[in-house]
């Protein structure tokens, strides 16, 4: 069975600084996707960034980028130039390709951006 671990329950960062959220996972699958989702205090979860396991190049979306280390089964999220609106719970998720396509979520990291 797949597992996803987020070892940082809470983090804080000063506005405009850079912060990295860590995520490790365990799987024997070779074809899968990894995601970071953001859940602001209003509760609606939205996708931040995704990474296909077969791609070696790290995904980037504006200020958000990942460091995907497939052999180490590590998938960290870097947020550059942090903004107050980045304050949220961040969830790392794993999805095996094929079958149900359900996500396995980590327990989340609560990020607070300080003014």
């Amino acid at each position, binding site marked *: 069975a797949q597992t996803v671990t987020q070892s940082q329950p809470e983090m804080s960062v000063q506005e405009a600084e850079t912060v990295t959220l860590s995520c490790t996972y365990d799987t024997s699958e070779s074809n899968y996707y990894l995601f970071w989702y953001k859940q602001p205090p209003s*509760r609606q979860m939205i996708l931040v960034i995704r990474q296909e396991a077969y791609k070696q190049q790290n995904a980037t979306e504006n200020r958000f980028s990942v460091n995907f280390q497939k052999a180490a089964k590590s998938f960290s999220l870097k947020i550059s130039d942090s903004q107050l609106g980045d304050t949220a719970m961040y969830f790392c998720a794993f999805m095996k390709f094929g079958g149900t396509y359900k*996500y396995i979520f980590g*327990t*989340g990291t609560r990020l607070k951006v300080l003014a």
Partner: protein
Amino acid sequence: GAGVSQSPSNKVTEKGKDVELRCDPISGHTALYWYRQSLGQGLEFLIYFQGNSAPDKSGLPSDRFSAERTGGSVSTLTIQRTQQEDSAVYLCASSSRDQLAYEQYFGPGTRLTVT
């Protein structure tokens, strides 16, 4: 178009009562998921519907939980004889198999409190 909607947004019920939670997915999305989010925990997969296929019920915690999806659209999650440990936020998500990225779109959730 409109996003995923869920109703009610909040539900308080007495222990032992039955509750129904509703999810309206994005129009045209064939896949629908239910998750449970407990305080301090990640999201726990409950059930998955894909088109006309038999649902994946592997995440339902007990036989008090059931779900149906009528006409391939609206879904209802029913919890019978509620217990205090059922208190959580119940999230619904939908996705389209046409989207190779397998992004799930989440609703705002229903916060269930069992007293």
